[in-house]
C-alpha cells in the first residue's frame, strides 16, 4: 500500500515557508499538570465542537452525576456534552460564549455539590476485542472532539476507514504554537496511557503503522513517549524540526512523507489520519474507564499571568477561576487569548467558560503583542517567503481590501490555513489574516445568500410546477369526465338504439 506501511521514517522533508517565533515555553514547561480546585459554578456551552449544537437532555432543577449526559449530539457531525461533576442544574439558558464576540449561546449552568460523584461507568472488558465501529461509537458517545484546538468530532475521523484506504496514524505532538505546553506535559506525565489511547485509535482505524511526531524543543516528551512505546515496534517517535506551523496537519504529514495533501482534500487522501495526543488520552479514558470527556488540560501563561501553569480544568469553568488559581495578573493584560498567540482567538473577558477546544489561556502584555500601526505594503515579499501554502498574501490582502472577492478566491483564499505566518513577519504590520478572515466571512455570506436565493427560486419553481401539475390533472380529470360522460351517453344511446332495434 503506502510507502509508510512498509518502512520506517528515516528522513524528513522540508516544508515551504514557515517562521520561528519565540517559543516562550519555559514559562510553563516545568510546571506539572495540576487539578484546578472545584469552581463554584460551571457554565457548559452546548456547542464546544465543529458541527451542530447538542440538544439539552436535562431540565432546570435536575440533580446530575459526574459524567451524566447533559445534552445529546444532533446529526452526523456533532458531539454530546456531559456533566463535569455532580450537582444541580441551575439553568438551561444563555451565557456569554468562549468567543471574541462574547455573544450569548445555549449553555447549561451547573452548581457542583462538592461530592464529584461519578455516574455508573461501564467500560468494555477489552477494547481490542470490540468491533472498530463500536469504538468509534463509544468515542462519539463520550463527546470526544479534536483537543488540539480543531474540535472536530473525533469519531467521524475514526470512521474514515470506511471511505479511505488508510495505512498510518500520525500523532501530532508538534505543539508548535508558542507558550503552549499542555501536550508536552501530557506526553511526559501520561505517556503510557497516551500510548494506550493511540493504540486503541489505530485499532479503530484499522492501521498498523503509528508515527508520533514531536518537535525537538520537547526532548523529555520524546524520551517519555519512546520509553512508553518500546514494547510496540509498530510505533515510531519522530523528532520534528522546530518550525511554525509544524502542527498544521497537512504540513506535518508533508514533513513526514514528502507528500502534499490535495487541495480541499483530507490527509486521508494519502492514507493518513492525524490525531492529537490529548485526544488519544481522552479516547483511552473513554474505552478503558468508560469516562466521557469532562475536563481537559490547558496551559495558562503569558507575561501578564503571575504564575504560569498547566492545569486540568473541568469544562465550563470560568476563565476567571483559572486565572485566580494562577494568582491573577501581574499587569493588566493587553490581550486575553484562547489558544496560542499565532492562531488563538481573543476572549472578550474572564467571565466566559473554558471549553473542549481551549488548549491555552494566554494573558499577553503590550510588549508581547507588539501591536503597531499599519502602514502601506512595501512589497518586501517577506509574507510570500513565510507562507507555508505558496500563497501571495500581499496580493490577497490588497484585493480583499478593495472588495474583489473573486480575485482573492482565485489567488487561493480557501487554501489559506490562517496560520498567521505572513502577518507575523510583515514589516508594515498589515493585519493580513484579518483581511483574509474578513474575505472568508464575506464569501460565506455570499454563498449563504446565493444558497438562499437558489432555494427560493427552487421553491418558486417547485410551486409553479406543482400548480401546473394540478392544473393539468384538473383538466385531465375534466376531460376524462367529459369523455366518460360522452361514452356513457353514447353507450346509453347505443343501448336505446339496440333496444329499439330489438
Amino acid at each position: 500500500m503506502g510507502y509508510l506501511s512498509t518502512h520506517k521514517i528515516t528522513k524528513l522533508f522540508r516544508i515551504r515557508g514557515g517562521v520561528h517565533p519565540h517559543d516562550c515555553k519555559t514559562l510553563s514547561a516545568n510546571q506539572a499538570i495540576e487539578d484546578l480546585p472545584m469552581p463554584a459554578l460551571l457554565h457548559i456551552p452546548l456547542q464546544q465542537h465543529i458541527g451542530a449544537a447538542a440538544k439539552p437532555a436535562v431540565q432546570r432543577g435536575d440533580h446530575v452525576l459526574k459524567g451524566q449526559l447533559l445534552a445529546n449530539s444532533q446529526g452526523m457531525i456533532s458531539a454530546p456534552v456531559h456533566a463535569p461533576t455532580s450537582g444541580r442544574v441551575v439553568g438551561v439558558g444563555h451565557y456569554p460564549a468562549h468567543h471574541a464576540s462574547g455573544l450569548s449561546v445555549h449553555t447549561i449552568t451547573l452548581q457542583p455539590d462538592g461530592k464529584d460523584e461519578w455516574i455508573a461507568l461501564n467500560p468494555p472488558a477489552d477494547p481490542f476485542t470490540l468491533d472498530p465501529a463500536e469504538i468509534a461509537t463509544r468515542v462519539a458517545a463520550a463527546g470526544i472532539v479534536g483537543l488540539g484546538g480543531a474540535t472536530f468530532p473525533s469519531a467521524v475521523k475514526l470512521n474514515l476507514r470506511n471511505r479511505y484506504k488508510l495505512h498510518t496514524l500520525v500523532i501530532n505532538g508538534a505543539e508548535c504554537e508558542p507558550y503552549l505546553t499542555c501536550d508536552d506535559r501530557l506526553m511526559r506525565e501520561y505517556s503510557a496511557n497516551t500510548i494506550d489511547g493511540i493504540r486503541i485509535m489505530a485499532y479503530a482505524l484499522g492501521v498498523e503503522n503509528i508515527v508520533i511526531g514531536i518537535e525537538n524543543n520537547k526532548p523529555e516528551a520524546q524520551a517519555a513517549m519512546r520509553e512508553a512505546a518500546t514494547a510496540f515496534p509498530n510505533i515510531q517517535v519522530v523528532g520534528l524540526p522546530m518550525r511554525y506551523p509544524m502542527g498544521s496537519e497537512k504540513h506535518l504529514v508533508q514533513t513526514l512523507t514528502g507528500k502534499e495533501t490535495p487541495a480541499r482534500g483530507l490527509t486521508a487522501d494519502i492514507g493518513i489520519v492525524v490525531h492529537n495526543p490529548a485526544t488519544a488520552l481522552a479516547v483511552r479514558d473513554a474505552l478503558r474507564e468508560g469516562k466521557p470527556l469532562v475536563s481537559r488540560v490547558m496551559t495558562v501563561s503569558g507575561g501578564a499571568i503571575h504564575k504560569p501553569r498547566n492545569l486540568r480544568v473541568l469544562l465550563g469553568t470560568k476563565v476567571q477561576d483559572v486565572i485566580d488559581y494562577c494568582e491573577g495578573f501581574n499587569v493588566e493584560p493587553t490581550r486575553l487569548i484562547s489558544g496560542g498567540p499565532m492562531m488563538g482567538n481573543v476572549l472578550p473577558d474572564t467571565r466566559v467558560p473554558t471549553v473542549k477546544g481551549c488548549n491555552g489561556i494566554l494573558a499577553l502584555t503590550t510588549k508581547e503583542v507588539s501591536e503597531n500601526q499599519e502602514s502601506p505594503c512595501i512589497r518586501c515579499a517577506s509574507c510570500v517567503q513565510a507562507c507555508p501554502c505558496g500563497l501571495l498574501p500581499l496580493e490577497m490582502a490588497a484585493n480583499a481590501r478593495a472588495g474583489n472577492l473573486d480575485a482573492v478566491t482565485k489567488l487561493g483564499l480557501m487554501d489559506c490555513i490562517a496560520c498567521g505566518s505572513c502577518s507575523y513577519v510583515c514589516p508594515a504590520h498589515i493585519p493580513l489574516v484579518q483581511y483574509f478572515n474578513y474575505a472568508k466571512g464575506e464569501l460565506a455570506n455570499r454563498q449563504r445568500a446565493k444558497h438562499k436565493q437558489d432555494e427560493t427560486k427552487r421553491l418558486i419553481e417547485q410551486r409553479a410546477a406543482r400548480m401546473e401539475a394540478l392544473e393539468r390533472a384538473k383538466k385531465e380529470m375534466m376531460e376524462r369526465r367529459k369523455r366518460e360522460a360522452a361514452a356513457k351517453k353514447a353507450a346509453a344511446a347505443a343501448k336505446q338504439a339496440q333496444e329499439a332495434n330489438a
Partner: protein
Amino acid sequence: MSMISSPHTHSGKSVQLTMLWVMLALAPATVFGLYLFGWPAISLFLITVLSCLLAEAIALKIMGKPIGKYLFDGSAILTGWLLAMSLPPSAPWWIGVLGAFLAIIVGKQVFGGIGQNLFNPAMVARVALLISFPLEMTTWVTADGVSGATPLGHIRTETGQGHTLSSLADSLPSVSDMGLGMIGGSMGETSAVLLLLGGLFLLWKHIITWHIPVSMIGTLLLLAGIMHAISPEVYPGMEVHLLAGATLLGAFFIATDLVTSPVSPTGQLVFGAGCGLLVYVIRTWAGYPEGMAFAVLLMNALTPLIDHYFRPRIYGRDRKGEPLNYASEEGK
C-alpha cells in the same frame, strides 16, 4: 472588520528597521567612496539625501498625509542615498537637488507614495539627469583627481573606434584596482569588495534573497564569457563586467529594491536574468556604457507582468492550480 485577528505576536520587523539594515549594508562602500573622493563627494551626498527628505516632506504635505509617520520611515533617505551613490562625485550641487526632487516626486509620490511606485525612484532620477545633462553626468574623476572615462566607457569608446582590447591594456586599471575601488566611477559603485560585503549582509539579514543577485550576475557573466571567448579582442571578459560599472551595486542594492522587483522566487530569477541580459546588451551595443539604470528600469516595467505569470505553486495543487490527484498519478 473591527474584530482583532490572530496572530497576537509579531516578529518585530518594521519598515524602518528594514531600511536601516539596507543603509548599514551600504555604509562601508559609501564611507570608502566619500573618503576616496573627499569633500565634493561628501557635500553632494548630504545635499542629495537632505533634498530627498525635503521633497518627501513637501509631497506629503501637499497630499495631506501624516508627515510624522512617513518622513522618517527611511525610504526617502535610502532613495537619496542610492541616488547620491550613482552620481559622479564631481557633479555640481544642483544635480543632487534636482535628482532628489525627480526621484521623490516623479519616481515615487505621483504613484501614490511608498510601496506604490512602479520604477526605482533613484534610477528614474539618474536616467532623467543623464538624458538632460549628459555632460555633468558623464564627467568622472578617478580617485587621484584626474578626470577621465570609467573603464567601461573607455572600452566602449575605443573598441567603437576599431581599437583592440589588448592595445588598451595599459590605459585600463588592473583587476585588483577595480575590485578595491581605485577607479573612476560614481561615488558608490567603485569598490566591488565592499559592495559585495554589504550584499552578503543583506542576504544574511534576510532583507533580500539570493535569487535576483545570482541570476543577474550569472546571466551577465555568462554572456560576457561567451562573447569574450568568441572575440576576445572586442569584448571584455567576465572580470571587467563583474567589477566595473555598477554591477554589484545594481545586483545587490538596486535591482533588489523591494518595491519594484517581483515577489515570487521564480519571478525574481526571471527578473534578475532580464536585468543581466539588458545590462550586457546596453553596455556592449547601446550608447550608454553604464547601462545599469536603464536595464533596471526596463525590467521594473515588466515586474507586474512577471508577478502575474510567475506565481508560486499553491500547496496541494499543481502548477495549473488544480488539486493534486495521486490516484491518476498511480494509474500512469
